[in-house]
């Protein structure tokens, strides 16, 4: 799609969807709350139960879902462009494996400390993600090659390694530990406090701006490393900065939510089919669309299965896969 106006329309529609989700989803849930009562009094009073539910429970969770969905989709766009592989996702370089290992290690060891408002599991998961990225890069630099295929293979190798360790931890864990490991590994959104949300959104915001400033370089890189180089892109620098930024964003999110699958794969895919490969549009559209998609999935997962919840990681896959398949067949039919 070449028409700038058409792409802008898609961007505006996506922005509308994003805002609709941001304002609408906190009202959905097993307990019905009224719009008027929520905004009746400020500051929040303890006896205004509707406002309590809205601000302290649902809005926090919606904000986390938006941040998580947006940054996964953003990272997905980056990994696909830089590795020139439409199947790449934020977890391709082993971030999911590393953070899963960190989380299950924390559960197994059972430490109860907390730093800066983040739990041990979160901190360990973040450290694990950083460890896996470090290992992938060390492997690549030992091989003296930062080519897409080297990074991909190194990432897959590291993932398998950590997955084996996760299984081992799962095997030796007792029943309650195993349950909370499983819960974490599926990926789910829990309510976190506003302070943590603030830190997370700052990190993700800066990360997005860095990546967005590389839009044109990503356009060129997604066509080929040599082509990009011959057109004046400092490829090694752009690849390193964008992949590290995307990995950090993913690590931070995954540390809080667990590895929620498919958002980072499907959302960039859908927008690539829809508006094409221009990252100046693809990045903001995917971020807003990913945020809205994950939040909608989570809203459905927590609202319609009361009194329990379905983990959102299950839901993103159940909804996302048919959508993606439909789009692929649709595109094939169009030629």
């Amino acid at each position, binding site marked *: 799609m*070449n028409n700038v106006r058409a792409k802008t329309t898609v961007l505006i529609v996506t922005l509308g969807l994003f805002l609709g989700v941001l304002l609408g989803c906190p009202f959905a849930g097993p307990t019905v709350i009224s719009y008027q009562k929520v905004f009746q009094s400020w500051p929040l009073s303890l006896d205004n139960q509707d406002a309590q539910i809205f601000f302290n429970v649902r809005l926090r969770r919606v904000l986390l879902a938006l941040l998580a969905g947006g940054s996964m989709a953003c990272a997905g766009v980056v990994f*696909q462009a830089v590795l*020139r*592989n*439409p199947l790449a996702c934020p977890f391709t370089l082993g971030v999911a494996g590393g953070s899963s290992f960190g989380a299950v290690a924390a559960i197994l060891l059972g430490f109860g400390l907390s730093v800066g408002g983040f739990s041990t599991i979160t901190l360990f998961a973040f450290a694990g993600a950083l460890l896996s990225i470090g290992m992938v890069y060390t492997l690549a630099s030992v091989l*003296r090659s930062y080519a897409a295929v080297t990074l991909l293979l190194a990432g897959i190798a590291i993932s398998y390694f950590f997955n084996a360790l996760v299984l081992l931890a799962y095997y030796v864990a007792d029943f309650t530990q195993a349950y909370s490991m499983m819960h974490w590994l599926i990926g789910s959104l829990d309510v976190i406090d506003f302070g943590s949300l603030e830190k997370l959104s700052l990190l993700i915001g800066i990360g997005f701006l860095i990546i967005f*400033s590389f839009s*044109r*370089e990503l*356009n*060129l890189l*997604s*066509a*080929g490393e*040599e*082509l990009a*180089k*011959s*057109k*004046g*892109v*400092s490829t090694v620098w752009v690849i390193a900065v964008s992949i590290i930024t995307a990995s950090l964003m993913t690590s931070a999110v995954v540390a809080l939510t667990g590895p929620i699958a498919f958002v980072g794969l499907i959302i960039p895919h859908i927008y*690539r089919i829809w508006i*094409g*490969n*221009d990252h100046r549009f693809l990045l903001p559209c995917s971020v807003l669309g990913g945020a809205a998609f994950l939040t909608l999935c989570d809203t459905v997962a927590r609202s319609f299965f009361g009194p329990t919840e379905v983990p959102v990681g299950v839901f993103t896959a159940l909804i996302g896969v048919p959508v993606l398949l439909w789009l692929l067949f649709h595109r094939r039919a169009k030629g």
Partner: protein
Amino acid sequence: MDYFKIQNLSFCFPAASNFKLESINLTIQKGELVGVLGPNGAGKSTLLRLMAGLLQPLSGEIFVESRPLRSVRVKERAMKIAFVSQSTTFPFPLSVWEIVEMGRHPFLGRFEMMSAQDKSICERALKLCDVWDFKDRSYNELSGGEKQRVLLASALAQTPQALLLDEPTLSLDWEHQLRLFEMIHKLHRNKGLTVIVATHELNLANRFMDRLVLMKKGKIEADGQPVQVLTPARIQSVLNVKVDALKDKSNGSYFVPKTPQAAEK
């Protein structure tokens, strides 16, 4: 005036020990039209990539307008030297216009949009290469000849002084081979571009190029006017093929490989 000056250039790939370029010395004048010939693995493409700054030499130096190439910033290099690779398929769908637009990258700041002037440069490049009519089509759906012309247009959008083409006629039929060489020749003549073409097309190179560089096993075997460089004896020693030389109308030569080659070995 010297445009490229290559001094004692050596290069090898870390993983391929049987291939290397050794002590290459070559000077190319501004505005020259040079063909680089040689068998597979002679180092033609590698030499072009070194000159385009896509590979770093192991030792020796490449000067561009008397400046060492490795001291030229990446974006500035892309304003001077454009490289056209063999036509490939891209992993994601890209339109012809998007690919040609990429040629303006070195001229744009980080947050700068293309100006009307940038757009008209792209438009001219598309028209020069005869691909304006399908600027909105998807590159991956084009034929081989069209793809090659789009890549050429993208290189021209860089408004370069030198154009390096790596086997541009590979997998093209006769008509498109001829048309591409005519196009390259016209660009050289009308715009004064310094053009270097690595190719296997002996006869086309013989007919269109001003100067030929013949390579074998990473070394330059012969360098000069086509008449001096291409002789049946030398073709046999470098390319390992016996040829007949036929005179054409303008008293140049046409080389026809003798068959069967295998039986004579």
